[in-house]
């Protein structure tokens, strides 16, 4: 089991979702993806779509400023 980090704070729609999805598809079951994202659409929808696709959202936490951290387990 490993943790992979992904920073999408500088990305815009749809690449915020695209990069998260592509990174998740590369992980093994049980691996964790740590996503740094900004408030607004990414924060509202990335944890929700991850849950809908059967992944486990372990944590959503505020890092500072507009940046949040989401931990997703595959």
């Amino acid at each position, binding site marked *: 089991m490993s943790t992979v980090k992904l920073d999408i704070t*500088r*990305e*815009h*729609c*749809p*690449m915020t*979702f*695209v990069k*998260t*999805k*592509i990174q998740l598809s590369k992980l093994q079951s049980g691996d964790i993806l740590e996503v740094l994202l900004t408030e607004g659409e990414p924060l509202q*929808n990335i944890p929700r*779509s991850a849950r*809908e*696709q059967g992944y486990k959202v372990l944590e959503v936490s505020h890092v500072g400023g507009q940046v949040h951290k989401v931990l997703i387990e595959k």
Partner: protein
Amino acid sequence: MENSDIRSLDQPKDPKKLSIISFSGDFDKLVATFTLATGAAAVGYEVHIFFTFWGLNAIKKKQGRAFVGTGFLPKLFGFFMGGLGSAPVSRLNFMGLSPKIFRYLMRKKNVATLEELVDAAKALEVNMYACEMAMHILGLQKSDFIHEVKEVLGVTTFLDISEGGRTLFI
């Protein structure tokens, strides 16, 4: 009738499926097509794009201007239409200058360019199809397209594929 009944009638049977008819070969409309397709695929939608008429230019192997097609007129037409790299914008094209400006601005503002969106669509395994009838008119073969184009289809097969989901014409 209750409100909930009305909603249930309006909603597609399978809301997690998006089918797009890509008719326009315009740069800006292709950006819209591939933005919707990749965004939807990334959040778990099954996505299908059916390329027809000008839209076929977007999936040609040769992205610049090339004499693609069989026969004199299709070859000439193919040359003037070009591929993804020579797609014009739908307004204020300024003889091909505007797509270059758009590409520059998209890179500068860290927004995915059209080429990056197409690559993302391939990576996300978006289903791409070519229209048999338009290919016939333009003298195009399946081998003229990128290998991600799964099949050459007609209307009835597209209707079967898109059944129950949402369909857009761009």
